[in-house]
């Protein structure tokens, strides 16, 4: 709906300015009409056909990030370190698994894992309590009428400054096209 009204308003304004002979304003206004007009698009296969005619294989294209040398080095180093770690620790792991008889060691492993996770969660809850207390203290300070008023004034000032700056940028861009 907004786009419909915007296009109508922009077109009305442009035609009015043309009729009244206000050339610079009419030109700027027509620019707005064109920005609201959808741009026709070619079929999705055109790019692929063009690349094929140029001798590129579109299916062979790789993601831009993956073609960067740093990415390739990082992956290579990660593979090397993984291999080294596996070679160093695998014998110890295999030996440890061999010592564990039957299925009991699986249960012990699972219980140990749950216990470790619970301990970590408990530590996390303690941290959260500290943060929560700090937040409550801060909220008490901010909830005073003076602080609220100051925060509101700051937000309004920031909004007004942003609008003014945005207007300056738009005017500068328009004058660059003149």
């Amino acid at each position, binding site marked *: 709906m907004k786009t419909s009204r915007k296009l109508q308003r922009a*077109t009305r304004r442009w035609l009015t300015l043309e009729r009244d002979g206000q050339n610079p304003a009419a030109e700027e206004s027509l620019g707005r009409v064109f920005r609201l007009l959808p741009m026709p698009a070619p079929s999705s296969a055109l790019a692929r056909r063009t690349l094929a005619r140029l001798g590129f294989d579109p299916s062979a294209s790789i993601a831009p990030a993956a073609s960067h040398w740093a990415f390739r080095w990082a992956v290579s180093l990660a593979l090397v370190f993984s291999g080294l770690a596996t070679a160093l620790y695998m014998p110890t792991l295999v030996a440890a698994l061999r010592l564990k008889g039957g299925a009991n060691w699986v249960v012990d492993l699972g219980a140990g894992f749950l216990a470790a996770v619970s301990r970590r969660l408990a530590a996390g809850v303690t941290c959260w309590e500290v943060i929560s207390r700090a937040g409550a203290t801060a909220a008490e300070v901010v909830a005073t009428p003076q602080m609220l008023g100051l925060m509101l004034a700051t937000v309004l000032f920031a909004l007004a400054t942003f609008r003014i700056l945005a207007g300056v940028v738009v005017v500068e861009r328009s004058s660059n*096209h003149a």
Partner: protein
Amino acid sequence: MAYEHLLETYQRPVFSIIVRMVRDHALAEDLTQETFIKAFRALESFDRSRKFSSWLFKIAHNSTIDHVRRKRVPTVSLDGTDRDEDAGWALANTAVSRGASPEDDFTRSELASDLESALVRLRPEYAEILLLRFQQNLSYEEISGILDLPLGTVKTHLYRARKALAEALEKRGWNPGVGGVERR
């Protein structure tokens, strides 16, 4: 695949200009493809101090104008407005978004379609200059370089193109009214 990235970035803007000049979707795709192939082959000769888009639009302009002159594409349909109506509607509906109500959707589509129809009925060079200026936001100097025209001529053509477009739209019944642009 840097060229693939260039293709993805500029394909639609180049196509949108060409299709309004030749008023044929399939032909416009062929000419767009030709443009990028020529650009790729001439990449080594591209002056990096220039804007790539201006250079590309110049190639598109030359390819399209060559074709128009070779085939003598008529600027106005000999069979009346039907082909332009269809062309305008088709172009306008390639990216029409849904409005809040069917009436708004229809009105916007109708206005967009009539704007497209009016645009394709202009002389190709007028349509091109309007699109380069208002859709691609190129300066007069850049347009002058692309079309190989003096700066004064560019301004004159732009003025005449604007007037022609306004007249074409008003002939289709769109006039500035009190409540909005109304079709009478």
